[in-house]
């Protein structure tokens, strides 16, 4: 029993320490040192890896999720004779919830795990150490551009996801199931509010992007520099960031849309 308590205490302390280290990394790479101009090409490269290469999976998933929503929405709403409202249902659920959350989950799997593995491997092959010895801060050179790229790409990917989804739903509901396109779009425009829906969805995307990249980068930087350690760190990135996204989504939704 005492043994168990001791272990629990030890675990808690080491988790706290890990959290502290991750905060330190974040602070030193982003907050304490604003991005110099030299970082720009590095940033472009990271946006390419983190954003552009995630584009395909985001577009394809957005399309299919939109189409499914259109189909399901239509069949459910048709029972109440208000299938015209499918546009509003699809748009609200996409813009408020599905786009930020699903994009963040895909982002964690596609870009987050890659970031962790890349940084972990750099650590294992002493590239980070040799950067330090050359007199270049790896937090600034390696970590910071990746963090910024994550912040920038997540909101953009989320918006692309939402638009593709809305369009996919229109494809199903309007073109295949024959809802009058005017009522699809007008119903949608009336119920979706720019500030309270689109902007709130964007805020979620920014927060998720921040959290997922932070976790990914930290796990890579702090991993045990062996192949086993890297594979564990990669798994942790996906698990932790998925949980963090879902948990934060509830909190943010309660703050934004609930009357809590």
């Amino acid at each position, binding site marked *: 029993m005492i043994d168990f308590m001791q272990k629990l205490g030890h675990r808690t302390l080491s988790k706290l320490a890990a959290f502290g280290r991750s905060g330190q990394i974040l602070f030193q790479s982003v907050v304490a040192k604003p991005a110099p101009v030299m970082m720009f*090409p590095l940033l*472009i*490269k990271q*946006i*390419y890896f983190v*954003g*552009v290469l995630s*584009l395909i999976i985001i577009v394809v998933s957005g399309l299919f999720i939109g189409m499914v929503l259109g189909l399901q929405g239509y069949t459910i709403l048709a029972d*109440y*004779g*208000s299938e*015209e*409202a499918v546009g509003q249902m699809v*748009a609200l659920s996409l*813009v408020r919830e599905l786009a930020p959350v699903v994009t963040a989950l895909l982002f964690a799997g596609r870009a987050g795990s890659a970031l962790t593995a890349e940084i972990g491997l750099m650590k294992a092959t002493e590239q980070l150490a040799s950067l330090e010895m050359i007199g270049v801060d790896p937090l600034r050179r390696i970590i910071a551009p990746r963090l910024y790229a994550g912040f920038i790409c997540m*909101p*953009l*990917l989320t*918006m*692309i996801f*939402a*638009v593709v989804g*809305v369009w996919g739903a229109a494809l199903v509901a309007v073109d295949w199931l024959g809802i009058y396109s005017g009522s699809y*779009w*007008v119903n*949608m*425009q*009336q*119920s*979706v*509010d*720019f500030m309270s*829906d*689109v902007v709130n969805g*964007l805020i979620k995307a920014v927060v998720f992007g921040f959290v997922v990249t932070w976790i990914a980068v930290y796990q890579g930087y702090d991993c045990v520099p062996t192949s086993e350690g890297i594979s564990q760190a990669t798994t942790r990135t996906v698990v932790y960031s998925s949980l963090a996204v879902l948990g934060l989504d509830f909190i943010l939704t309660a703050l934004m849309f609930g009357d809590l």
Partner: protein
Amino acid sequence: MRMRTMEISVGFFMLIGFLALVVLALNVSGLNLASKGAGYKIYANFENIGGLTARAKVSMSGVQIGEVTRIRLDPQMLMAEVEMEIYPDIDFLSADSSAMILTSGLLGQQYIGIIPGGDVEVLAPGEFIYNTQSALVLEDLVGKFLMNQVSE
């Protein structure tokens, strides 16, 4: 060379990202930058507004001519006072128009329908529509129906 294609694709990516934002703003949320704040305000008092909310549409013959901007309780009359913003090009509402709260579809949203009157004078900004008809509230209807049954 590789850097160049990378730059181009990143630029392209950012561009479609921002385009997506524009589409979300204009096509999905129907944000209308041009008419925002450019319309004029008119008011109407209702005994009961039911489920009417701000941003509900104001329409005439089914065509949107403005939107509800604010709802408050008039402390003297103890009635709901609805502030509407009418698009600037709709400057021909006769002074004796009437307003009623309607529902689109069985479960749909509530909106305000304006029915024109015959007066030659038009509603000036800030004026009230006096002829109003409240929202249909299901409980009231049922209540009335029961009363009729009893009195028969």
